[in-house]
């Protein structure tokens, strides 16, 4: 980044810590730039306070988190999926958020673009969650396939200064964003605020603000959610997995189908937050069992149980020893448990 950005007129700065990094990308976004930061492990915990600030001020920005094993310093450069629920709940105070979880290097490329787009469109920070396995891997990207003309500008105000409400409640739920310096002199604050951007402690204004913050996401799940179905059509069993575990799962499915004749498929959320609950409920209907393999003690398992435990049996497979889940482990676990 520090090498490439200047060539393109972009800006790179190495801040003193991750708190500062998170703060500065918000500042840059307010100034009208698309901005991002990246970290692994401890850094993401330090960013939490200001992630909440981006949520409440509705400032678009992208946070990349390459997960490592263990809490704290843990297992640097070893794979894990320990930050899935932190991505949802890491900052204090109730809030919505979007988290995207690609599973190949080319998909990282595509989903980074989609993440920025969602972030700008819904004025919300987006976390791009990666696995170390894929974060430290080279894989083929067919750059030709990427639509380079696709561009997304944030929605900016189309009314004169005096009529501009920075946090107006419009039908889309997403107010226009006035970049600083464009003549709309308004106020941005991490306090709960009213449509005019100024702090409020009036229950009805608080309620309206908070509800809109959730509504802008809940009302647009069709656009925000994304997932892959792999060999699910005729399946009796289903694996639910994300990130690199989904690759192991696919490999396992190949073996299970080809060598053992077991009808099994994969449901892979690409958007993990908000969760693909209705898709899961739909797909779970005709399944005998759902397997949830994860490199943690069970995190995607929680929403899966929440939404599908009344539909069918759910079996977690958890591995937290710093290794990836091998396809053969999954094959034998599944064969033992059907």
């Amino acid at each position, binding site marked *: 980044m520090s090498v490439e950005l200047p060539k393109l007129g972009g800006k790179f700065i190495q801040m003193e810590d991750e708190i500062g990094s998170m703060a500065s990308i918000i500042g840059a976004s307010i100034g009208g730039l698309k901005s991002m930061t990246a970290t692994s492990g401890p850094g993401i915990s330090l960013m939490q306070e200001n992630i909440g600030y981006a949520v409440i001020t509705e400032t678009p920005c992208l946070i990349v988190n390459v997960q490592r094993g263990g809490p704290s310093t843990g297992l640097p450069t070893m794979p894990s999926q320990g930050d899935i629920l932190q991505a949802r709940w890491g900052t204090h105070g109730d809030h919505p958020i979007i988290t995207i979880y690609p599973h190949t290097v080319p998909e990282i490329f595509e989903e980074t673009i989609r993440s920025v787009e969602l972030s700008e469109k819904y004025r919300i920070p987006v976390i791009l969650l990666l696995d170390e396995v894929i974060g430290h*891997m*080279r894989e*083929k990207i067919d750059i030709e396939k990427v639509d380079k003309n696709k561009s997304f500008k944030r929605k900016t105000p189309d009314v004169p200064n005096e009529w501009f409400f920075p946090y107006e409640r419009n039908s889309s739920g997403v107010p226009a964003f006035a970049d600083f310096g464009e003549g709309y002199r308004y106020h941005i604050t991490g306090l709960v605020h009213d449509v005019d951007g100024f702090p409020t402690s009036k229950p009805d204004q608080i309620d309206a603000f908070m509800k809109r913050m959730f509504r802008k996401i809940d009302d647009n799940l069709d656009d925000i959610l994304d997932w892959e179905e792999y060999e699910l059509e005729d399946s009796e069993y289903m694996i639910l997995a994300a990130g*690199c575990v989904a690759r*192991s799962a696919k490999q396992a499915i190949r073996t299970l189908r080809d060598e053992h004749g077991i009808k099994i498929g994969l449901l892979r959320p690409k958007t993990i937050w908000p969760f693909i609950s209705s898709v899961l409920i739909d797909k779970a209907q005709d399944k005998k069992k759902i397997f949830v393999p994860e490199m943690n003690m069970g995190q995607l398992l929680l929403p899966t149980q929440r939404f599908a435990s009344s539909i069918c049996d759910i079996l977690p497979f958890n591995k937290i020893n710093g290794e990836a889940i091998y*396809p053969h482990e999954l094959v034998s676990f599944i064969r033992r448990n059907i």
Partner: protein
Amino acid sequence: MGKKRYEIRLSGSGGQGMILGGVILAEAAAIHDGINATQTQSYGPEARVGASKSEVIISDGEILFPKTSDLDVLLCLTQKAAQEYIDDLKEDGILIIDSYYVGNVPSKYKNIYKIPFSQIANKEFNTTLVVNIIALGAICAATGCVSEKALFEAVKARVPKGTQEINEKAARLGIKLVKEQK
């Protein structure tokens, strides 16, 4: 190639260019041969002192699981690397070792190429810097996992300007050395 999925690990000590080697091999397959390839490596402080490794998976189909589990090919340039990694090689896998540094290897492996890479490099090129490229030539010839043409192109694209010729020579030498043993 006759195989859908081919798992290769290059191992040696830090500074022997195993990572660059892996990248070149993967690019030869993915960019120049137009099939699929992934390359991974180990990071972290431990990687600096101990054995260094780089893994490449090549496949004409989609590469699902991106980590190696049963190696088809293992390159070992040091005894330490050999000790650490040899168990991951399939019984019918191909083992390529620097015969000057690597002594005993388990007898179960039959497809072994023993080449004194460093000594040859020193003798032929007066530097050990090309050891990794000679080794790539050897892998190419021993396995056919990438075409020779693709390998040369990939090498040329990655090595520093001005060293392209000598590196291509090194690759050719690796190919020759294996063919002699075949």
